């Protein structure tokens, strides 16, 4: 006789692979838009990222003597690679992508023990490491305006990705966050800089701005996020926390010093706030487990990112903020625990009910 099986004998249809698939589905609109915005080189970055991530995952699973196929099928490497691709410069060269997926999948995830064991968000940690190691390549931004005027054909795109074609200065530009940081540092007025940069809320919403491959379109990312919320794949606490944590201090400081510090809308819509809110701080592995803990985690990420953007050396601070908060997760998990039924929040049994029974 086979070993007796413990209940429950019924099971929901929930599956890890299905969850990962939903996340990828939610990322699709913003990704397709990015392909349209940046052309073939962006597509190459995406494909290369996914393929190389699978390669590293398989290689390291083999190293650690784990079943390769079953783990590859869970889709976690693909999600990591996809998000990393969206965080890279749109025309990133092949080696930058491959080093990035190596860092994310092999170093941050597999070496820490594989799926579910990593302390840091693989995509964010990889982005931070790449930014420090390759500051020039990681900040070579492409101007979508230039691409629409002169889109590279497939072969040119391949050349860009293979690093054999030099990207001309006509294609590159600086992100709005970069510009603000540089110009205000030189004592320029914020309003002047924004007018000079032709800053329009509608463009930042739709994503027609300079930035990483897939982080620019707030609306399409929001669409994906709402889909995941609706499907119950993610919960609202971390995203709302992040957006609030960033928007509140930005709003307040902007109120007092409107010419030195941009407001809430600017912070939320430029840079990677929406990508981080719906696809990065919602990564369950590296986030706290309770609802209140996730809210605190999101708030911390938003606040730290805003602090780094406003007072730090880097124009964009989300990746650093997420890594810092990832490190704080065990502490958050320790202090934000749900109250157990029949116990006080300290864990002692509730006082006897006799009093109010009469």
């Amino acid at each position, binding site marked *: *006789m086979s070993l007796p099986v413990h209940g429950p*004998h019924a099971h929901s249809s929930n599956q890890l692979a299905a969850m990962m698939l939903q996340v990828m589905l939610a990322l699709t609109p913003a990704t397709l838009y990015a392909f349209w915005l940046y052309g073939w080189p962006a597509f190459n970055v995406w494909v290369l990222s996914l393929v190389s991530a699978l390669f590293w995952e398989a290689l390291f699973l083999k190293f650690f003597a784990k079943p390769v196929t079953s783990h590859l099928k869970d889709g976690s490497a693909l999600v990591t690679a996809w998000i990393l691709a969206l965080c890279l410069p749109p025309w990133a060269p092949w080696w930058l992508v491959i080093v990035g997926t190596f860092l994310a999948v092999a170093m941050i995830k597999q070496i820490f023990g594989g799926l579910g064991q990593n302390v840091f968000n693989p995509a964010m940690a990889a982005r931070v490491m790449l930014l420090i190691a390759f500051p020039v390549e990681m900040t070579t931004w492409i101007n979508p305006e230039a691409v629409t005027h002169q889109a590279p054909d497939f072969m040119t795109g391949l050349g860009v990705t293979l690093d054999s074609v030099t990207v001309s200065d006509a294609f590159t530009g600086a992100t709005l966050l970069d510009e603000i940081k540089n110009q205000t540092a030189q004592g320029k007025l914020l309003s002047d800089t924004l007018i000079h940069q032709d800053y329009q809320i509608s463009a930042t919403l739709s994503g027609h701005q300079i930035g990483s491959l897939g982080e620019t379109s707030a609306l399409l990312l929001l669409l994906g996020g709402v889909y995941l919320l609706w499907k119950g794949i993610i919960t609202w606490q971390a995203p709302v926390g992040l957006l609030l944590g960033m928007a509140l201090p930005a709003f307040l400081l902007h109120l007092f010093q409107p010419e030195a510090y941009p407001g809430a809308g600017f912070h939320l819509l430029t840079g990677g706030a929406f990508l981080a809110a719906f696809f990065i701080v919602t990564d369950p592995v590296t986030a706290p487990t309770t609802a209140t803990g996730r809210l605190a985690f999101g708030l911390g990420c938003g606040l730290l990112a805003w602090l780094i953007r406003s007072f730090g050396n880097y124009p964009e601070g989300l990746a650093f903020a997420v890594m810092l908060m990832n490190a704080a997760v065990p502490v958050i998990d320790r202090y934000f625990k749900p109250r157990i*039924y029949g116990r006080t929040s300290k864990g002692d049994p509730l006082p*006897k009910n006799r009093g109010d029974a009469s």
Partner: protein
Amino acid sequence: MFKKKLRGGVHPSTHKELSNTAKIRRFPLSDRLYVSMQQHLGAPATPVVKVGQTVGKGQLLGASQGAISAPVHAPTSGKITAIAEHTAPHPSGLPVLAVTLEPDGRDQWEENPPVVDPFKLAPEEICTRVGAAGIVGLGGATFPAAVKLGSSLKTGVETLILNGGECEPYLTCDDRLMREHSTAIIQGALLMQQAVQAKNVIIGIEDNKPEALEKMLHAAAGSGIQVASVPSRYPMGSEKQLVQQLTGKEIPARSRAADSGLVVHNVATARAVYQALFENRPLISRIVTLSGQALTHQGNWEVPLGTLASQLINYASGFDATPARLIMGGPMMGIQLPDLHVPVIKGTSGILALTNDEINTREPEPCVRCASCVRACPMGLLPLEMAASIRAGDLEATSKLGLGDCVGCGACSYICPASLPLVHLFNYAKGELAQSHRDAEKRERTKILARRREERLERQAREKEALMAARRAAAAKKAAAEESSS
């Protein structure tokens, strides 16, 4: 008013439509009944009959043993052919003592004292009769009903809650019972109310059973019993959760419902109380749901206790497909049966034959901390953390995380996208902790015994010393006296 409602919970597919449409049918007597002496929580009953003896229907077969136990009665008249061990309806397949009864087909009642109006009985007398009828909690926990009623009477309770939640998927025995025997349930409830001297009675019924709800409302009209609809969410039928939903109260940790002025009984238990007091009929049969896609005919049967599951299925249904898993009870908290050669007992709310598609056969994957289990836990626990600490072997930490508060409902395992065997881990840890607790107690006792022995030896040595000293002193005195006299 803002009341505390059930937290968490899950919505498993109910599959109730498989078995809830047809009326309860009476299952005929088999040619042999295996009446188990262990059909309840607590000490097994002791057989009071001999092999070869003829017994009447309802005659005592096994007497209650100890404080928490229940007697067992003959489901029909016939001859005792054996008192031997038989496979228990338990995953272990271990044997328990059972009385084998060959029905004589006459189904003749034992002589019974005439029925008096049970509402004229004293509360203590009702408890005694419920105990003598062998009634146990029929929701599946099988705790002797009289023990619960008696202790509630002693503590004094405010509210009697009848559990008509039946939140387990597939099971419809309580649903059908409420539809077809609502008056008996209400009468039983009133008797139980008198037994515990409760001020009010609330019957909680999940809103996925509208017909039962309507019938019960109708039957309860004018009786002062409140029939309440509760949302359908698993585990609504769990005692603590139902209490929370209906009264807004939480039963404090490590205390019984009675300490909060509450007592909870299943609707089927109320009907058994009715039968015992109005009809002088001990608990000798129960309603069993036969369901699962592997069966040809699903439905509810009133089955004499001791009927073999195999006979029940052969007669009532037959298989459409080879069942992938046989379960006694519901699919959430029910137990796997080793085979069908086991008797129906008082706790058999259902026998399910599930196909491969209905059970979870996926291999466990790594935990990604998605916290679905945290959101599903009705007790506010952190199943993922508990599982991690059990895997790390740190049972002390698991205990601190609230393992003792886990009701074992399985909502966490059900929802887990990684198919982790969470309840399995918790039950393992509960067992280990209980064992280490017993070991510690044993060590403590041994230590006390050793200390006492040491003290005794010391005392004996001291006494011996004192005696020797006294003797020496006496001898010296004597010598001195002799010397002085000489």
